[in-house]
């Protein structure tokens, strides 16, 4: 078991390296530091001296891959590629365009993201599974067909609509909850209600459909026939046997998402004024702050890979066929 975890961790390394290469290619090769400097300083009045100064200020004044000016091993390591890669891997994200330390910003902003994302995730998961199980209980009936029709309609509506309509209806018109904003502690709860509700509601359509198909797949299997032959009621069959087995494919889809909850939903945070990582990212994209975008890309990848590893581990824990092989 331990060896298995170590092996999975080792697999993560080449993937992170790959992500790093892609990030580097995107940020430094296609758009060279010279171009970046010119864009930042304004295309018209830049002199080569100004560009050089800008680059030196950020440590971008090294060649990309191969440094002829140094000697020996330094020819490879004294390059932009190695330098930037090392920084990333040690989570030294540097400074944003506004001069703040990106790492500390990230640490500060991940908690608000979690405050929205985690409740949405948990409530959404429980609601979707419960509703899906209920629908499977009534499969083939008119209720089933109507519910599936409603589910398709819900998932065909843009998420933006839910947010905007939600804000207009619940905040602007009925004044039940504040339209946006964020605060810590118990007082802050009122800011979370609408985003979480909308997050859960928008996901119900697709969620019910997916879980329903998983449970339907299970309910046609032989062991369910055996369970019925034992005299179990349909409800006991569903909750006692189908749910357990259905959890396994559900795990693959669900666990991998958990670490990335920290990243926050870009749209939600932006609309609701939540000072989380999602809005951090959107602001960075809109202001073309490459430093932050780069950091978020790397962070996102690390979290996703952790999610993959967690999925594997949870499988070995929950599926006896894997656990005992």
């Amino acid at each position, binding site marked *: 078991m331990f*060896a298995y975890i*170590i*092996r999975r961790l080792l697999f993560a390394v080449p993937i992170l390296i790959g992500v790093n290469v892609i990030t580097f290619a995107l940020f430094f090769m296609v758009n060279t530091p010279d171009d970046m400097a010119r864009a930042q300083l304004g295309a018209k009045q830049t002199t080569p001296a100004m560009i050089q100064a800008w680059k030196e200020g950020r440590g971008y004044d090294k060649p990309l891959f191969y440094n002829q000016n140094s000697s020996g091993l330094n020819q490879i390591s004294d390059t932009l590629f190695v330098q930037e890669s090392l920084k990333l891997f040690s989570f030294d994200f540097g400074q944003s365009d506004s001069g703040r330390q990106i790492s500390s910003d990230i640490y500060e902003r991940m908690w608000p993201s979690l405050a929205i994302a985690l409740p949405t995730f948990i409530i959404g998961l429980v609601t979707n599974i419960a509703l899906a199980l209920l629908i499977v209980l009534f499969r*083939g009936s008119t209720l089933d067909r109507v519910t599936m029709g409603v589910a398709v309609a819900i998932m065909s509506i843009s998420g933006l609509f839910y947010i905007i309509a939600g804000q207009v209806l619940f905040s602007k018109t009925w004044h039940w909850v504040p339209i946006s904003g964020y605060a810590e502690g118990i007082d802050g709860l009122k800011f979370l209600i609408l985003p979480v509700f909308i997050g859960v509601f928008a996901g119900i359509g697709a969620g019910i459909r997916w879980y329903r198909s998983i449970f339907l797949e299970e309910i046609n*299997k*032989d*062991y369910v*026939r*055996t*369970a*019925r*032959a*034992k*005299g*179990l*009621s349909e409800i006991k069959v569903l909750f*006692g*046997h189908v749910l*357990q*087995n259905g959890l*396994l494919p559900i795990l693959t889809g669900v666990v991998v998402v958990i670490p990335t909850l920290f990243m926050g939903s870009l749209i939600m945070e932006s609309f609701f004024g939540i000072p989380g990582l999602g809005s951090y990212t959107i602001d960075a994209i809109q202001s073309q702050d490459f430093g932050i975008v780069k950091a978020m890309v790397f962070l996102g990848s690390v979290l996703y890979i952790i999610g993959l590893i967690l999925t594997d581990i949870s499988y070995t824990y*929950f*599926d*006896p*066929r894997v656990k*005992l092989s």
Partner: protein
Amino acid sequence: MFESTVLSVQNLVLNIGENRLIDDISFEIKPAEIFALVGESGSGKSLTSLAIMRLLPEVITVDSGNIVLHQQNLFELPEYQMQKVRGKQVAMIFQEPMTSLNPVMKVGDQVAEVLKLHLGLRNSTARDKVVSLFEEVGIPQAEERYDWYPHQLSGGQKQRVMIAMALACEPELLIADEPTTALDVTIQAQVLELLKSIRDKRGLSILFITHDMGVVYEMADTVAVMKQGKIIEQAEKQKFFNEASHPYTQKLLQDAVPKQILKPQLDSTKLLELNDLKVHFPIKKGLFQRTVGMVKAVDGVSLIIEKGQTLALVGESGSGKSTIGQAILKLVNTTDGKVSYANPDSEAINLTDLSERQMKPLRKKIQVIFQDPFSALNPRMTVSEIIREGMVSLKVGSQNRQDQDNRIDELLNQVGLEVDFKHRYPHEFSGGQRQRIGIARALAVEPELIICDEPTSALDVTVRAQVLELLESLQKQYQLSYLFITHDLSIIPAIAHKVAVMQNGKVVEQGTVEQIMHNPQHKYTQKLLSSAPELIRKVMFA
């Protein structure tokens, strides 16, 4: 009033939409009676059992009739009361032990579940009862096995768990739907033995559903034959086997025991020789996936197949017999040993040394037919495309399209199918017909040797007889050799000249059919032979 009937099925009619699936059947089962319901696939026997348990799929409706269990009409019960009957008064075991148990629940808990449900036992009492049930059905180390999961048990053990689960609440009727069909013959014998002993001990009635006449002869007190939803004959066992009146029954009985005429032993030339063939698969474990051991699927096998003759390769699952077929066809890599194929006018070629390019021209000499007719043919190709594929790829015969069409017609005729089948798709045919198409496909490239990988195991008994006859006539006509892989001993005298018996990757005994069947030397061979159903044994050793 003394009621001597446990179950009474009265005039049962089942429909699906407009079509009749079960057409007015009636029978009775007495206490401690084993009632066998026999029929081929599609006869409706499994549906009958599901009807008794009221577990029919929704699309199938009960049009009329009654099922009475000890004066209680089961069709009149509301669902929640029927749930009290299932598992308690009537219990059922199924065909596929592999998939019939919940894979993520301990086997002990699965049996305990039924005890808690119907008898209201608490955890510790239930556990003790389960352990004693396990002992009763012959599961070793019962206390430990309680906590095991289904995938850790063998097929036979899983079936024993199912039986324990069925017996837990001491039902009066046990419905067994082909419980041994998926098991090896030695295990089958044990499970049948177990069922009989349980019947004797507890006075349990058993409704035994099967298509295997040998098993019927072994187990039944009363036999009923179903065909297309009707019971066409019903009698007490001895009367049934000795004086069957209906022509269908007679044909079933006839086909159940393939003819036992031994084939003449002729001197013939060597076609294929296996020399100490080994096929090992590595087991990788640990941090760096080091090879920690080998699965020795084939471990030093030497065999000879002669021209125009059939070598039967017999073994149970996991013996390695299928792997040998794959190795000869170079579909799997050989670890060691030689596969020598005779080359007229020159030395034999060692197939294991050849590259795929070098092998290709030889492929037309060695072909294969498969066990499952439903996955052997590409559902999206027409019959003529399927047969033509090999001819084109291996450049056999004229490459002119019209000539090929003619040859396809010829082949279809030879295997007993009609010429205008060639524009149809596989799903339009029955299992037996599909197997014939598979044979035509193999024949198309004019092979000398055909690897037959359990070609009749998935077929009904009457169809099996026809396919064996077809293979026989083709052999005579074309001097074909067969490597006939099978687990079914009864058909061996009908088709084979020589036999090799395999166990755990090794050949434990080989010789002529007469030698093996009548004078087996090795213990395993003897065990195999003695596990065969009595009906077969009676005739085999006559």
